[in-house]
């Protein structure tokens, strides 16, 4: 593989891949928050 094919492939897939993975992680965080919402009792038990 020549240098520029290597460089552009790694750069483009790298940038797109990083963005895609982090976007998916943000969706997973939203899902986790939906499935396990914060309960006000948690704050009370933490204080207690």
């Amino acid at each position, binding site marked *: 593989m020549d240098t520029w094919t290597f460089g552009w492939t*790694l750069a483009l897939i790298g*940038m797109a*891949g990083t963005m895609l993975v982090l976007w998916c992680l943000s969706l997973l965080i939203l899902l986790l928050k939906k499935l396990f919402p914060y309960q006000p009792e948690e704050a009370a038990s933490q204080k207690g």
Partner: protein
Amino acid sequence: MESALISGFQGLLLGVTNLGVAHVIMILIASLLLYLGISKGYEPLLLLPIGFGAILVNIPLAEMMGDDGFLRYFYNAGVRTEVFPLLIFLGIGAMTDFQPLLENPKIILLGAAGQFGIFLTLLLALALGFDKLDAVAVAIIGACDGPTAIYVSSKFAPHLLAAVSVAAYSYMSLVPLIQPPIMRFLTTEKERKIAMGVVRQPVSKTTKILFPIVVTIFASILAPKGAPLIGTVMLGNLMKESGVVDRLKRAAENEIANIVTLLLGLCIGATMEADQFLQAQTLLVLGLGFIAISLDTVVGVLFGKLMCLLTAGKINPLIGAAGISAFPMAARVVQVEGQKYNKKNYLLMHAMSANAGGQIGSVIAAAVMLSVLQGMGIVGG
């Protein structure tokens, strides 16, 4: 008797007679690192052992990095095996609070934009004639994350380890000087004044505990070559959030991190042997490292502007500069810059979210890079 005395005396002078100009230059460079660490407070935890290691390795005939040298022993055990940076990641995970990110997950995208400097610098390095894997090692300085830079460069270009590490840690400590001019250049005064509301979305303990587990499984499956990086950060974070292994968490963030930081610093210094370090290529690496971190900031702020546009002016583009991994320094820079233009503006929590995103982003970017390299057949499976 007389010849024995002369021979013995000559033995004492061997070090002096073998001292070359290159050794002296390297000892001066090492002294500069010590000065920056001790007097200026720039990353002293690393610059002090690095500087001292560099002095030790440039003492003629001491052979600290010879086959039986004591620094060679630590280098082979911890750097060649990539264990040291991974243990540092364990400590980072145990110290990092991802709560601001969990409260405001869309900000994680700034952590992705803040890594683009890595890939743009890769192209620049290739244009300057660096070999493919050398270019990868140089570009990773843009992760703005010492352990990631050490992990990748020791894997692909160990001969560049010293230059890459010194560049990564030096520029990380210079973030408060590098970022503000770029932030001001790319934003209007009106944008810099945007006040962001308080985001208070409390996160349940279950979510905090599941987060490192889910990230590890998901990201490692997508980028398996980065599993050691992601796994150690998230293991450290799980120890912190679970609250059931306090001893292990404290060990990770204190004893383990401290011992490994010392040994890692010494080992990096030990790679600064005159014949390897005093080359034009080292200057190029330092220059490209500066460009990488500047480009991270440029793309981060531009992405912040895009988010500002898409949210009808609710996001202050300055927080894009915090999408790098220098935690929490980059977030503090954003807070200070924001307050210069709007005294009532508190961007810190938002910037901390972006900064936590940048920490994950740097690890993910390296993981993606390693997996793409594996996919292209550049590195073994």
